[in-house]
């Protein structure tokens, strides 16, 4: 049976844990989404923009140098970094913005951490001529000044969030408060497979184009399915986009790379699957970093896009069912992978995607040479070069927030 079920559950995970005011809005959204999912004119319209605006399909590149260097398996890179705006985030932003327009919503709101989802949302808002406001933690605004400028250039208002830890989780809280207040005319364009039903399903579906393309491309290039899929996991959107079309293919193993930050024992990490326990935050039940009283802990990662204490319900379900395996990758391992991919392949990956590359570095040497591995390069690293340069200048000492 396809998941989620009609109540938005993936096994025990998911559901809808929101204020009553949002329940009618979520039901309206769910109904509208089920309609467009079957509507050929909507699908054609989305495909038009994915092809001619986003630049899809993105290439699947055989990373011969990296494969030889790691000495096990054939490694392919799915180049989501070549998507317009520089990451996979646009796939979902386009789908949801077209849905918002169809629903007659006059205003988009979104949250952003590193700024990638904020930029993608600001981009589609400009394209479709819809008013847009993006909530961003004050800490993240400091760390990601370039993306703030991009959003403003695109005509979006960036609203700083000073409450709590002033990072992504607080930006989501503030976006939810805005939505509760302006629920009549506003569409909340959530950026990951998190939150209340139908968001985890809908965002996954809009990102599934990644895995669908990989399937066609690898069959064309290799004539067989891959043995391993690897993606980084913050909320989980790029990993679900890659994994979902392969869930029924029993021979395909799936690996998610979480952020171990300064190490799981340091308490400074963002590894909710490896070190958290299930709980409810921001609309759904899933793995969550929390203390003994159920208070949500502040996450840390060198990568702002993975720096979040919760993960979506579907990755939570895939962990428990054993369908996917999740490993935690430290800041240092991610930084090494960042340099390795840059030098081996001439591709500078986002620090988020560098976690996936680092997992491949661990896995590849154990594999037979004929096994195929696909790594999702979810975004490009241009946004991170200043931060990494500063770290290298300090001789590899990694400073967070």
């Amino acid at each position: 049976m396809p998941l989620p079920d009609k109540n938005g559950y993936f096994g025990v995970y998911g559901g809808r844990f929101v204020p009553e005011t949002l329940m009618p809005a979520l039901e309206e959204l769910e109904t509208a989404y089920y309609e467009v999912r079957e509507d050929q004119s909507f699908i054609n319209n989305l495909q038009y923009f994915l092809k001619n605006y986003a630049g899809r399909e993105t290439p699947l590149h055989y990373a011969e140098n990296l494969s030889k260097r790691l000495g096990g398996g054939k490694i392919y890179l799915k180049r989501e970094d070549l998507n317009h705006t520089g990451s996979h985030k646009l796939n979902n932003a386009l789908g949801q913005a077209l849905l918002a327009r169809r629903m007659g919503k006059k205003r988009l709101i979104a949250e952003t951490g590193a700024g990638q989802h904020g930029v993608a949302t600001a981009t589609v808002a400009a394209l479709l001529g819809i008013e847009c406001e993006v909530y961003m933690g004050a800490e993240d605004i400091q760390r990601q000044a370039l993306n703030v400028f991009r959003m403003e250039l695109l005509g979006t208002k960036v609203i700083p969030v000073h409450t709590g830890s002033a990072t992504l989780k607080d930006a989501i809280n503030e976006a939810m408060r805005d939505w509760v207040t302006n629920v009549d005319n506003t569409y909340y364009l959530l950026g990951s497979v998190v939150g209340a039903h139908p968001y985890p399903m809908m965002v996954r579906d809009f990102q599934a184009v990644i895995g669908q393309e990989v399937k066609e491309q690898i069959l064309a290039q290799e004539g067989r399915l891959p043995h391993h899929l690897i993606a980084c996991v913050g909320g989980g959107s790029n990993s679900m986009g890659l994994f979902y079309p392969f869930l029924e293919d029993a021979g395909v193993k799936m690996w998610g790379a979480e952020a171990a930050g300064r190490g799981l024992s340091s308490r400074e990490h963002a590894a909710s699957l490896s070190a958290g326990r299930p709980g409810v935050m921001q609309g759904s039940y899933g793995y969550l970093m929390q203390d003994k009283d159920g208070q949500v802990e502040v996450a840390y990662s060198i990568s702002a896009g993975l720096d979040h204490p919760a993960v979506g319900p579907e990755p939570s379900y895939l962990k428990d069912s054993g369908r996917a395996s999740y490993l935690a990758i430290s800041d240092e391992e991610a930084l090494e992978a960042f340099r390795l991919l840059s030098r081996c392949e001439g591709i500078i990956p986002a620090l988020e995607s560098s976690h996936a590359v680092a997992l491949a570095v661990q896995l590849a040497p154990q594999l037979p040479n004929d096994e195929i591995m696909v790594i999702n390069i979810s975004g490009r690293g241009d946004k991170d070069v200043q931060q990494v340069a500063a770290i290298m200048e300090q001789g590899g000492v990694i400073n967070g927030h």
Partner: protein
Amino acid sequence: MGISRIADTFVANKQAGRKSLIVYISAGDPSLKATASLVKQLSAAGADIIELGVPFSDPVADGPVIQAASYRALAAGASLSKIIQMASALRKETQIPMVLMSYYNPLLRYGLANLAADMDKAGVDGLIVPDLPWEESQPLREALARYQLAGIPLIAPNTPVPRLIRIAASASGFIYCVSLTGVTGIRQNITTGIQEYMERVRAVSDLPIGVGFGIGSPEQASSMAPFCDGIIVGSAVVHTLYEEGEAAVIKLVKRLKQAI
């Protein structure tokens, strides 16, 4: 006591021709000791039911005033278990109905069965959970029902009638009607058509109706009182306590009670 202690309060006020005043405070802000003392003073000043707000790290249904109070309470060491212990001690000194208002995760972490048992032992009468809609609330409702504790649901102005009927059918204690679409916090104007809204709820339930969110002044309380059974005031009380201290809160509560 649970449901019956709440029901008795609404009945007594109704018989006296008054509305009930439900006062929310952020438990543990500035300290649990101060909260315990405040509850007794509020009761003497005319509060009929006390909502003890349990602080949470991510209070999505709250505006800036209660958010800030939650963070102060957490920083001062408040937790669900300590709040229940405080209530247990208080119950020896006051018979005022006390309900907890908490986000769902701290309750889940405590364990729903343990929570209901401990609330019962402590003399806490009910529970309001702002991020737990009806569809997800069955496990909690069942746990509370074992001890005749009130599971008080929230209704919003945009709740469609079929939902309203489902929610009302499983409610106990009273029905908490959110006065506007928005988060907690004082508003100058509440534009919702309260009379029509209350009539809609009244048509599907015999339970007392409390109205809250946005109400800060005796004038606002007085204008809404004719259409409901109880007025809920939170942010105005929390704000006054923080800015002006206990004496000012007591004065505000007396004026609110007189107005309804």
